[in-house]
């Protein structure tokens, strides 16, 4: 299974923010869409960073004025991205090892989706459930 087939199960384009927007706006978006991270994109829809709940909590712990600061100020700039054709298992390994919870997916330089650790877990669960279901059906059929 590759990332493209995971993105196919998502309802729409990823929620993004511009680096010049405020952290307050970022929090509002995270809350409204019940998600854990936003990809920061430039005018060409190319990812330039990512801002997660963690980034905000970390900054808030040392700066109570964080809400008024810009996303670009506190976001992670060194973003690891994936391609639609990347396989999910390798991506899952990387996310686990590098403790990344959100992986922006880029096609021809443009952001096309975002994969969260939750998406990966769900995809794995569905894969195993499906295999168990299939095997059970066949074993039951053998017994008849």
């Amino acid at each position, binding site marked *: *299974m590759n990332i*493209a*087939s995971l*993105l*196919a*199960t*998502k*309802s*729409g384009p990823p929620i993004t923010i511009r680096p010049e927007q405020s952290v307050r706006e970022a929090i509002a978006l995270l809350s409204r869409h019940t998600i854990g991270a936003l990809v920061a994109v430039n005018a060409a829809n190319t990812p330039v960073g990512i801002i997660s709940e963690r980034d905000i909590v970390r900054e808030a712990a040392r700066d109570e004025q964080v809400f008024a600061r810009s996303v670009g100020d506190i976001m992670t700039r060194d973003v*690891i*991205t*994936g*391609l639609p*054709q*990347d*396989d999910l*298992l*390798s*991506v899952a*390994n*990387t996310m686990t*090892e590098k403790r990344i919870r959100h*992986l922006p997916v880029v096609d021809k330089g443009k952001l*096309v989706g975002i994969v969260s650790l939750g998406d990966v877990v769900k995809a794995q*669960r*569905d*894969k195993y*459930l*499906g*295999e*168990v*279901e*299939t*095997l*059970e*059906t*066949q074993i039951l*059929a*053998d017994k*008849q």
Partner: protein
Amino acid sequence: MGLLATPVAPLRVAIIGSGPAAFYTAEHLQRREDLAVEIDMFERLPTPFGLVRGGVAPDHQKIKSVVAAFDKTAADPRFQFYGYVEFGKDVTLADLREHYHQIVYATGAQTDRRMGIPGEDLRGSHPATEFVAWYNGHPDYQDCQFDLRQERVAVVGVGNVAVDVARILCRTPEELAATDISDRALDALKQSQVREVYMLGRRGPAQAAFTNPEIKELGELAGADIVVLPEEAQLDEPSRAALEKSPDRATQKKVEILRGYARRRPSGKPRRLILRFLVSPVELIGNAAGQITAMRLVKNELAATAAGTLRPKPTNTFEELPVSLVFRSVGYKGVPLPGVPFNDDWGVILNDKGRVLDPDTRRPVVGEYAAGWIKRGPTGVIGTNKPDAAETIVSMLEDLAQGATLRPAHPGREAAEVLIRQRQPNYVSYADWRRLDEIEVTRGRSQGRPRVKFVRVEEMLAALGR
């Protein structure tokens, strides 16, 4: 609306398609004891089961045993099958909206993706899915021509469809004669001149999509020796490093099996099945008559990315494979349904947990849902459609609880039947299908085959006295 889904006003659900996702959706709905529900299932062909009948390989009958579960679902008195009734033609979305509270699209992924290389449309180049549909007796594909007088064939891809096609091409007439392969395909394959079948993977042995049981089966064919080039069975450095870092038992086993094949000596069987890795077709070369004579391949190498995956990168090394028949199996996608929002990028109906979405507002379209491959894309095995359908049902029941269903003017079972009978007087019921099924099985019995399929719609209708 408070009475909806109670015995006085059963929830009326239309399911479009009759493959695994369609039947699992019906089964989940029937199991809800708190729900009074009536399900009408619409199928374009007179015969049900989608890819279980038309996709699963004829030499893999055991996989088809899931049909027993579908029969049980169909036996429920609240279930009605309308075969040979095409959505968008015999009944439209507008018709369904007048007769059902909820509509579920479970139409699968019906077309293949293209390779996007020069020469792709030369004579002798085919989508693997068409070959599969042809040998499985799908009525739409019975007039396809595959020139099996050619001696060398390439199957592009190493997924399960590619494996099926390669295996069927390598089977002996005796092996095939014991299956439910279509008679026409059986005759053509008996005359087959095919000597060499190449399967081409763009990445290495460790990344190949086929499963270990599938690859083992290829090594046990009665009429074909399996060949793996020793240099391609060796793991390259990035693959070795990746496997060492996150050891996966199935992948290790797969590599082991393939290395074993690389050590094998040909035993002189009439055919050879050659698995190639780290190659991508870049061009199909034809002669003056427009017939393929060769395939140009580029050798790939794998490069590790920041995301931890290994991507194939073309090198400057090319080779020509002297093949004259090509089957491509590089992915599948769904076909848009008339009037239903579609996501072209991923080839699925635009949806959120099975709720069809309006492409402009991204809000759910009331009363419309998707399940199976048309919802999530072509991934997983038959059983994967069960949890998939369950997710769609959760959305359907949440919406029902919110009163967000269609308000059909004619929500009765009889009204729907009258409409369908008027639009398609020859519709095929489940009892009709069981008659066809019995005839097929009876015809097969005398030949020692699971069944001899009807492959033409006219034959099926005639057998039912229509």
